[in-house]
Structures are given as structure tokens and as C-alpha cells.
């Protein structure tokens, strides 16, 4: 479902399945809850391998943002496809910053 690593001071959450929907979202939320306990303030979700996300999956991304510290910054690597469009439709691209590459996201969010 997800792999966790650090790049400098940025926590990288790589989504490892092609779909994040209502059936799969609870498992991801459980993994995030278990691995994001110290309120990190810089997280990048690497969703380059994600072909499909629905509103329940998006709700898990929102929950991740709420797990972060008060000044947390969350980025998502998602190219130009359906995930980015979902962020735009829901206006969450104003809160969760989309990036084209992992390097760009880590560079922008890292200190």
C-alpha cells in the first residue's frame, strides 16, 4: 500500500498500488497512522504510480495533512493526469501542492 522513507528532512510516502479508492483507503490510512506519529512538517506523497483515486482516497490525503504539525506542508507527485485533476476539481490543489517529479517536490518542500 505504501512505503516510507526520508529524503533530507522530508518524509516520502510512496504509494505502491495503482488504485486508491474506498475499498483500499482504510488500509492506507492505517499505515499512515502507524508511520506518521511524530507530526512531521514536511511530507511528499509519491503518487506517480497511481492511476485512479476517488474522494475516499482523497480523504486519506486530507487526513495525512491533519496528522502533520500546524505548519505542515504536504506535496503530492502526480504528473498531469486524473489525480491532479481531482485535486483541482476539489480545490485541494491550493492546500496539497502538486508536483511533476519527486525531486521537484523534495527540493521545494525541504529546508
Amino acid at each position: 500500500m505504501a512505503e516510507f522513507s526520508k529524503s533530507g528532512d522530508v518524509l516520502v510516502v510512496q504509494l505502491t498500488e495503482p488504485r486508491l479508492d474506498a475499498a483500499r483507503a482504510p488500509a492506507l490510512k492505517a499505515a499512515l497512522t502507524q508511520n506518521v506519529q511524530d507530526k512531521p512538517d514536511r511530507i511528499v506523497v509519491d503518487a506517480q504510480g497511481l492511476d485512479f483515486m476517488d474522494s475516499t482516497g482523497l480523504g486519506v490525503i486530507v487526513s495525512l495533512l491533519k496528522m502533520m504539525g500546524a505548519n505542515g506542508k504536504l506535496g503530492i507527485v502526480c504528473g498531469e493526469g486524473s489525480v491532479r485533476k481531482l485535486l483541482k476539481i476539489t480545490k485541494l490543489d491550493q492546500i496539497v501542492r502538486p508536483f511533476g517529479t519527486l525531486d521537484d517536490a523534495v527540493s521545494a518542500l525541504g529546508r
Partner: protein
Amino acid sequence: MASRLDETDRVAAAVRDACGEAGLDGEARADLELAAVEAANNIVVHGYSGSDEQSYTARIASGPDGVCILFTDTGTPIPPEALAQTKMPDWDSEAGRGMAIIRACVDETDYRSTNGANTLLLVKRRSL
């Protein structure tokens, strides 16, 4: 379809096939797949309150003008205020975006609830 969230993969696959037959472009296919999955989720989660012992149908038709999907269920009808939802909830809401997403992703919707049966029609037209 059984009223289970993991059954929505089957709906999504059928929608993708129909979109291919109708010649919808990639963005339109993704839009309709998302709208269909949101509609199916709504039936399972809200219409049947998560019970996996119910069922619903998704009839899909494709043609040169686009693709239509007709969902039919016998669960709790969508409340009028939810049906009219076009505005997204506040950013920190983890749910409640489904109907607004459906409306943003398709060209036409029609919802009816009569004699215990609910139908939701989604229409995605092919761009000229």
C-alpha cells in the same frame, strides 16, 4: 453488483471499456470512471449503510455521442440537499465530496426515486 466497495473495480472496468468503444478521450474516460465509482460508493455507503448483502445494477450504454450509465438501487434515497450539492466542503473535511465530484465530471445527471427504487443516470458526451 453486490453492495461491496471492492465491487466498484468491476464498474470501473466496464466503464473504461464502454468509453473506449465510444471513442472518448483519455480525460473524458477518467472523468466518467471517477463519477461512476463515486456513484457506486454512494449506493454502498449511504444507500445501503455499508451492508454487503444488498445489490444494485449499473447498465452502461455506449454510442457515437458518448456513454450513459444508469445505476439502480433500492436503498435509502439521496437526500435532496446532498443531491443538489455542487460546492466542495471545507478543505479539512475527509468526506462529503462525492456528489460535487460527480456533477463536475459528467455532462448530465438525472436522479429519480420512485416506489422504493432509485435511479441515477450519468451522461458523458464525446467531444467534437
